[in-house]
């Protein structure tokens, strides 16, 4: 049986303003974990009931440790940020469908923005071949050294121009004119949409990691749906980001706003 576990906090520290890295120990959760999957974290406060879905940033199956990187945006992530080493928190996972990794692909392009960056670290670790990573941030970049340490070529754009190119990931695409065989992307919706439009024009297979508000996280409650279509269909259907995603193929996704 799968289960929710009590994970032990090994580390929880700020890595940039408002951005935290947490390392938890939870062997059961690491066994099947793959890049692009997420975990549910539960807050220790009675008024905050729903789990917070957080992507797996890195996983170490030998030590049973998992790294999560999160931004403080509301009450739940604030609560998480105040946890101390040695404390335990409820956690469940791995959940969802992660990135499809093919060893036939040799030229990979990862495009991520903001808090969509963390899951790409584990992805880099699981890919073979040449990996280029475009990262967009408002200001302070995170996890750049991690990507480089795992052998990726990293280009950064920041909106305020403090690091790398001034602008966003689309600017990096314009500058570098990449020709990958596979694209993987995660980040804010407008960014995903722009990446999807460009990659469609270039006809490059693309996997997108979506985000939606969730409750169960395991596919039972249908609150987290997004509009999708089957390759050839004219009609669309609502599919579950938590179970059928969060990673979808570009051509499955319908952009409805």
């Amino acid at each position, binding site marked *: 049986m799968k289960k929710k576990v009590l994970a032990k906090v090994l580390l929880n520290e700020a890595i940039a303003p408002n951005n935290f890295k947490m390392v938890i120990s939870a062997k059961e959760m690491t066994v099947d974990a793959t890049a692009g999957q997420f975990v549910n974290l539960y807050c220790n406060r009675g008024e905050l009931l729903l789990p917070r879905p957080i992507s797996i940033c890195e996983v170490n199956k030998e030590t049973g440790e998992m790294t999560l990187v999160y931004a403080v945006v509301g009450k739940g992530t604030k609560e998480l940020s105040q946890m101390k080493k040695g404390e335990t928190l409820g956690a469940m996972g791995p959940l969802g469908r992660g990135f499809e990794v093919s060893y036939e692909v040799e030229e990979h392009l990862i495009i991520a923005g903001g808090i969509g960056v963390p899951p790409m670290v584990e992805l880099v670790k699981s890919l073979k071949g040449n990996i280029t990573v475009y990262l967009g941030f408002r200001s302070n970049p995170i996890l750049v050294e991690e990507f480089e340490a795992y052998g990726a070529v990293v280009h950064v754009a920041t909106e305020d121009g403090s690091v790398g190119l001034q602008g966003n990931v689309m600017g990096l695409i314009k500058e570098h004119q990449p020709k990958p065989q596979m694209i993987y992307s995660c980040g804010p919706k407008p960014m995903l949409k722009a990446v999807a439009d460009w990659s469609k024009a270039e006809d490059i297979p693309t996997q997108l990691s979506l985000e939606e508000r969730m409750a169960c996280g395991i596919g039972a*409650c249908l609150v987290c749906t997004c509009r999708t279509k089957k390759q050839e269909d004219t009609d669309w259907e609502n599919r579950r980001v938590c179970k059928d995603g969060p990673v979808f193929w570009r051509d499955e996704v319908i952009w409805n706003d």
Partner: protein
Amino acid sequence: MTKLDLRVNIAGVELKNPVMTASGTFGSGKEYGEYVDLNRLGAVVVKGIASTPWKGNASPRVAETYGGMLNSVGLQNPGVEEFIKTDIPFLRGYDTKIIVNIAGRTVEDYCAVVERLGDADVDLLELNISCPNVKEGGVCFGTDPRMVEHVVKEVKKYAKQPLIVKLTPNVTDIVAIAKAAEAGGADSLSLINTLLGMVIDIHKRKPVLANVVGGFSGPAIKPVAVRIVYQVAKSTNLPIIGMGGIMTGEDAIEFIQAGATGVAVGTANFINPTATIDVLEGIEGYMKQYGEENINNLRGIV
């Protein structure tokens, strides 16, 4: 001490224990079946099923509230045919009762599902009359006693399994509604469906839910649910399935003491995937603590 007897009878169907799942929170059991042994549940109440597939509302469909949540799934479901093909065979692989929750936009819709389920291998039907009646300008079926009696009466004509009617709490006089359902021929009542709520994202200056308003559930609403179960139990003779914020065995005992025969666990599943089993074990713990051997002796003792 002798063995605990947790069996309860809902409209002629014996459940091994009173613990069920609340419709819409447990899919058709497949997903949570990876976390809990479905054989241990009194019944699985499946998500609302309509005569044809429904796509449901736009996202976001969920908002967190203080001690609760709102949902606006909008009864997304694959339709009764797909349900019969896929979900019944799956559930029949377990030793638990199957209760089918039924959605509709017209009286005919409801009747069509119920008729189609006539020869299906399910144990009980649960009519969700919190749906908007499209022929009456979208006013919810469950808010008017005459409409309630009418829809229940019509549906009963087609029902081969005992019929549970699930009431909305968003009414002035729940007892009048319950009596109307009883008069229409209901065999049992499920209390309560969600309250109507709304959450605004003050930073984005718009409602969190794409649908603006949504159904409010979770421990926050429990006092309303207990009050309604108590009021209805005192004024009708139908067995009641109580729900609304049940998180623990003690919460379940509260509903049973208020008059419920069965209890359903909804939102709690999202916070704790083994909530149903934990509730069951909590009930057993309470019975042991007080030397109660038969769960039925606790019913309505308040």
